[in-house]
């Protein structure tokens, strides 16, 4: 690919979360772009089949270094960042507790940035965040949600430990950018889907009560296919002149929740579901929230108006900024992406 780069192909690149759903694709894309001087940060307990398959497919994969460590260990982070020019930080914690999410997202990132500043040759720190950091509480249904939209102010009220961790992570990255001149880019992917990820997004609905409640309805899903998303992430590390920028990652063509759900049920498995309109979901979440408060947490506030809005209110999404500034264009169209996603779970697949 003809690419104007802020780095050369001989610069050393570190990818955290490299054995994950998106991380593997990021490594693959980097190899395709000719960046073979890679160090992949993996957990000691990780089953590395997925990553090793990718490395085996590419001739340059043989030179890729696997670094086994713990991001919560400053020592491991220092060692991993030794001589590194670009870090793609994809490792994410999905701990349900707020403290756990904070540790895995914010503390781990702080350790990595410290290591990078002390022992690396920092050209770019690419921090992969999430759409979860946004709050659409004050946006109308159908309003545009983009990089300028407000961030969640009360992740605890939303009972969203993941969002809390990601918000704190982003704040730390921005702080390091301001205080230590760490060149960074923050990416906020929407709903990433593709082979390797089988479940339905919470934006479609929930199965908490033993059957599926389809709440998403005609909402547009902020979908991004894993290959497209990985390419956007890679570009964010290479493109010059975008330090300090934040980009949402959403594909050009997306589907509504109903379209996605119908296709899923048709191809993967038929199952019982109940369609719940947004205003009903909002009312039920309001009651749940009130009961949780009145009962002093006898039921945790797992359903509340903030979460309801974030998941099911329905907004429009734009990828204008990332297209303009990174020159990114989703390489896989939605039909091919859906076929690839659904095929993995197809019971008739041979």
């Amino acid at each position: 690919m003809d690419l104007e780069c802020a780095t050369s192909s001989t610069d050393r690149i570190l990818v955290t979360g490299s054995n994950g759903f998106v991380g593997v694709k990021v490594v693959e894309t980097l190899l395709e772009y000719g960046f073979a001087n890679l160090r992949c940060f993996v957990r000691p307990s990780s089953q590395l089949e997925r990553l090793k398959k990718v490395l085996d497919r590419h001739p340059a994969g043989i030179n890729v270094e696997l670094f086994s460590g713990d991001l919560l260990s400053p020592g491991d982070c220092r060692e991993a960042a030794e001589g590194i020019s670009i870090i793609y930080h994809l490792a994410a914690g999905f701990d349900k507790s707020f403290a756990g999410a904070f540790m895995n997202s914010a503390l781990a990132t702080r350790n990595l940035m410290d290591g990078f500043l002390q022992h690396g040759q920092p050209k770019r720190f690419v921090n992969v965040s999430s759409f979860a950091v946004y709050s659409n509480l004050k946006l109308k249904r159908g309003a545009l949600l983009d990089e300028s939209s407000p961030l969640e102010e009360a992740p605890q009220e939303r009972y969203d430990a993941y969002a809390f961790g990601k918000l704190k992570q982003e704040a730390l990255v921005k702080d390091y950018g301001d205080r230590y001149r760490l060149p960074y880019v923050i990416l906020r992917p929407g709903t990433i889907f593709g082979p390797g990820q089988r479940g339905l997004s919470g934006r479609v609905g929930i199965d908490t009560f033993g059957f599926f409640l389809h709440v998403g309805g005609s909402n547009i899903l902020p979908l991004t296919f894993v290959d497209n998303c990985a390419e956007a992430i890679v570009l964010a590390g290479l493109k010059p002149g975008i330090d300090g920028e934040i980009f949402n990652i959403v594909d050009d063509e997306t589907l509504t929740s109903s379209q996605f759900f119908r296709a899923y049920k048709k191809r993967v498995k038929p199952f019982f579901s109940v369609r719940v309109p947004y205003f009903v979901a909002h009312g039920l979440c309001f009651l749940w929230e009130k009961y949780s408060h009145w009962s002093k947490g006898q039921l945790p506030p797992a359903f509340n108006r903030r979460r309801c809005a974030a998941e099911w209110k329905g907004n429009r999404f734009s990828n204008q900024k990332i297209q303009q500034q990174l020159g990114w264009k989703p390489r896989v169209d939605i039909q091919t992406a859906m076929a690839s996603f659904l095929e993995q779970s197809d019971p008739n697949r041979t």
Partner: protein
Amino acid sequence: MLRVAIVGCGKIADQHVQAIRRIADCRIAAVCDREPLMASQLGERFGISNCFSDLQEMLDATSPDVVHITTPPQSHFPLASQCLKSGAHVYVEKPFTITAEDADSLIHFADACALKITVGHNYQFTQEMLEMRRLVEQGFLGGKAVHLESHFSYDLGDASYVGPLLGSRTHWVRQLPGQLLHNVVSHGISRLTEFLDDDLTDIVARAHQSTQLRNLGGEEILDELRVLIRDKSGTTALFCFSTQIKPGLNQFRICGPRNSIVVDQACGSLIRNENRSYKSYLTFLVPPLQNAREHLRNARLNIANFAGRKLYHDFGVAELISRFYQSIRLTAPPPIPYRQIVLTARIMDHIFAQIYGKNPVSRPDEFECCVT
């Protein structure tokens, strides 16, 4: 008004903060963590402005009445000693200390300072366990317990806990003498110690690694444990810890010379088994109906507790903390007798010595041993 401080702002600290906020006449005055970011995230979420990264600095600046220690177990002994020295009562998360010797020393030190100390065996204070204790005190068993059984399960599917543990050999759980077991079995063992004498004549422990853990890359970690115990007066006890039994068990059975009780903490129920004899086929008809009546009674109680906002997840934690604070205010005995804390630690010492011996990285089969 008791002024409370929390040392260690990890996952379990949230549970403590939430429980303390349910209790009247106390407030959280400060939080402390060696990692300043951890202290500030807890303080920010719960509106606690005094956040410290140095324990002595916190003790000097805020002089708390009680300190909750929610750090990894390796630090319990030194941190608790430091808090006692500064004049604070101490609530220590389980396991109390690494060894029985440390447990004994810490309790003696608390006594010498005229301060109170307790351990977070909160499962002892759930509604059904409180009812069990009432029945035992009323003489339902008909005498001293003849036999006890404690079953405790842990689900390896919870990746948020097992993942980091398996991911790093330096994880604090891996550094404990009893590793994974050390961090979780004290709940199940403490239920037994309430009804066992201090003089134990037998402790036989067997442990192995489950196939699931082996497949997860558990290396030297053991996760299936069975223990038989007998005290000098002849009361026997069985302890079973498993990551594999499904549905997960969290049960306590206490059998007396007349009647028995089964407490199921997984579903908050208590079954009274009364020794009655029935003629002929009534043996097969009446007892099941009596059991059905017991289950219905439990369902009714749980519904009433739910309606009364008393069925919350952390009831046991709040109850234990509340009783501990009450013992401080009234200068009454602490909610968990010190004898039980030390006996729990002694039994754990014996178990880990037997199952890990001197070579904790051998194959699981080689850990099997029998010491009587």
